[in-house]
């Protein structure tokens, strides 16, 4: 079903631009055109369909649903909602405080916030079209596990001790009083309202991510066309132990969202970088970023931020090692 994009790219590169696919430039350009057209098409269609389905989910309803849930279920649900609820990272502070003042434990809130940037409909879509369903499933399972286990760990060390004092007080108040239930009654939406929401959502998300797709695919194409075949495989292909923590550290100052990084993953994997190293690099790029941490400073003390930071580093490094070790058995 995706051949049409390959044919289109071949037509444009070979017939219109007169380049040969055997040249580096022609090859890179072909990759770029094929991937951007495919991704743009998929994004427009799929965001619309997904938005139709999830029109009635929002952070307020998630909060009311999570408030008062028992902890074991809470982590899993928190992480699951993090994956499906739309919300912009610029809202992470109000969301954090909204959850906290409803008495939801810090671990469950963090399960939501850690999973959210890692998994969203755009990421899943890109993974499916570029890297196949097995890899997608793997990615979703790992992303959720990082959120869930991270949340469990933060509650186990009583992370709420290290909130900024006003946030800690809000949490205490929230846990004493019954959860606030000022949520709008769950109105059912008409098809027309859903269409309106889905249309606005598609334009909004597309308007936000198209440039990331271009950057990501551009980097991916450059890797694809200009890094000599075998170079990555020869130097990093054996999953040398140090390559994983190095990849994680390299990913931190690089800040991107999942949309920009997935086309790069595709190229890295095709060039022979082991799956675990690739995953570690990409998750670190997406989930651990300085701007996000500076925002979180408003509600957390340095100590908690440091713990969170180290937690993510360790988690991504472990993921890298584990998958470098087991990937020959599960993805071949």
């Amino acid at each position, binding site marked *: 079903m995706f051949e049409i994009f390959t044919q289109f790219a071949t037509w444009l590169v070979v017939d219109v631009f007169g380049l040969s696919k055997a040249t580096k430039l022609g090859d890179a350009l072909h990759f770029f055109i094929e991937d951007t057209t495919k991704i743009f098409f998929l994004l427009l269609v799929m965001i619309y369909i997904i938005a139709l389905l999830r029109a009635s989910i929002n952070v307020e309803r998630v909060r009311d649903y999570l408030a008062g849930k028992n902890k074991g279920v809470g982590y899993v649900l928190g992480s699951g909602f993090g994956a499906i609820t739309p*919300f912009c990272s610029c*809202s992470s*502070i*109000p969301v954090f*405080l*909204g959850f906290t003042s409803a008495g939801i434990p810090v671990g469950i809130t963090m399960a939501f916030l850690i999973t959210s940037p890692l998994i969203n409909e755009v990421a899943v879509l890109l993974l499916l079209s570029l890297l196949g369903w097995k890899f997608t499933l793997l990615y979703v399972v790992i992303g959720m596990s990082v959120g869930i286990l991270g949340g469990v760990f933060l509650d186990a060390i009583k992370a709420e001790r290290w909130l900024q004092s*006003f946030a800690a007080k809000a949490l205490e108040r929230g846990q004493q009083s019954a959860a606030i239930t000022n949520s709008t009654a769950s109105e059912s939406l008409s098809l027309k309202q859903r269409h309106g929401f889905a249309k606005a959502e598609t334009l909004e998300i597309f308007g936000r991510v198209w440039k990331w797709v271009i950057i990501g695919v551009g980097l991916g194409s450059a890797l694809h066309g200009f890094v000599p075949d075998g170079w990555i495989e020869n130097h990093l292909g054996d999953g040398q132990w140090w390559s994983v923590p190095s990849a994680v550290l390299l990913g931190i100052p690089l800040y991107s969202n999942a949309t920009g990084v997935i086309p790069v993953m595709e190229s890295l994997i095709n060039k022979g970088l082991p799956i675990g190293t690739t995953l570690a690099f990409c998750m670190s790029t997406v989930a651990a970023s300085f701007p996000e941490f500076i925002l979180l400073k408003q509600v957390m003390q340095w100590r908690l931020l440091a713990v969170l930071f180290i937690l993510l580093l360790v988690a991504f490094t472990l993921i890298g090692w584990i998958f470098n070790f087991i990937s020959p058995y599960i993805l071949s």
Partner: protein
Amino acid sequence: MKEIKVLGSGCAKCTKTAEVIEKIAQELNIAVHVIKETSPEVIMGYGVMTTPAVIVDEVNVHAGSIPHRDLIESWLLK
């Protein structure tokens, strides 16, 4: 004079929201006092979880996006 607060921790959309409200108020010749509120503690106090949010005379009327022109006019003309 109406007091309008735009809540949001300095994101581009929040600045834009405040600007749009001021501009429309000027066009309609209505005196308003637009305040940009960025403190997370205050934002939490209004129970808002998505920004930008708009508070008109201490009532939360909008959250989560840059409000449409019609909506802003309806607050100003109320």
